[in-house]
């Protein structure tokens, strides 16, 4: 007899335990990113000189990355849709395309940072750039974590196993997308 993880088979208050855990993780992430963004907004409102610093970020690079993340979110929700239909192979394929989207996002970010660092804007330049690298870096770390989790989930999904995980990892990925939706105007548009 094989045992199954309790997250797969139990539901508390109508929400499967695995998905419930993801929601609690996201609740803590709201405080993490909310605290950082709240501090950023406060200081940005107070210091007009920050506008001159943010003028050096590339709106087009940020806009392109927003498009990439929105598209990867679409792929993640389509993977969930495929999983609900019991098509694990399609779900796994769509998850891998989502990972590819995350890869493109990180590549653009790396090019952007290289350009900015070469121009002399480093994490120690001033408070704006400290925030910029801190918040964008923390977000990028979440992108990497999501990519790793999606890869692991895609392996089991391809065998038509543990398909509920496709939704769980998708919810996490959409949250990463939502965080970027707020980072984009704060770091790239408000100049």
């Amino acid at each position, binding site marked *: 007899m094989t045992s199954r993880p309790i997250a797969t088979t139990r539901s508390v208050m109508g929400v*499967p335990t695995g998905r419930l855990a993801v929601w609690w993780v996201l609740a803590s992430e709201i405080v993490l990113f909310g605290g950082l963004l709240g501090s950023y907004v406060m200081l940005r409102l107070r210091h007009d000189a920050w506008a001159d610093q943010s003028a050096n970020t590339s709106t087009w690079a940020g806009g392109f990355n927003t498009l990439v993340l929105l598209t990867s979110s679409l792929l993640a929700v389509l993977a969930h849709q495929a999983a609900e239909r019991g098509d694990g192979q399609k779900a796994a394929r769509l998850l891998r395309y989502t990972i590819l989207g995350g890869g493109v996002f990180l590549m653009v970010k790396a090019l952007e940072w290289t350009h900015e660092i070469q121009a002399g804007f480093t994490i120690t330049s001033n408070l704006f750039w400290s925030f910029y690298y801190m918040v964008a870096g923390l977000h990028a770390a979440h992108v990497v974590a999501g990519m790793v989790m999606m890869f692991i989930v895609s392996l089991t999904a391809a065998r038509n196993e543990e398909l509920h995980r496709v939704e769980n990892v998708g*919810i996490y990925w959409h949250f990463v997308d939502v965080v970027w939706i*707020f980072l984009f105007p704060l770091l790239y548009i408000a100049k």
Partner: protein
Amino acid sequence: MTVLTPHTRADAPHHDQTNYVAIWGVLCALLGISIVGPMFGVRLLTLVTAFGIAIVKAYIVCAYFMHLKIEKKWVAYILGFMLALMLVFFGGTAPDVLERDGQQWRKTYVEPATLGGER
């Protein structure tokens, strides 16, 4: 406690017919507006197109992609409570950060001049 079979969900959602590509199209259109709007250089328009649309985009992703629209209500309450905590944090600390002068302290830091003048 409900026992689930491996590939079923407890709340049996019916979102399989949702046109996600159309929702993505709306999100892309909103992204375009949020980039073009601030180019006019009007402060109010920038606030509405950049930050107002960001809120709309985030709502659409949460409601339709994360399925919060059909998720148990208390999940949204948990997330909303966390957002409310952030507002408490902001409201509690912003007055100290944003004030230029106080009764018990003196600010010695001199703001650097901005390239674009006072905003």
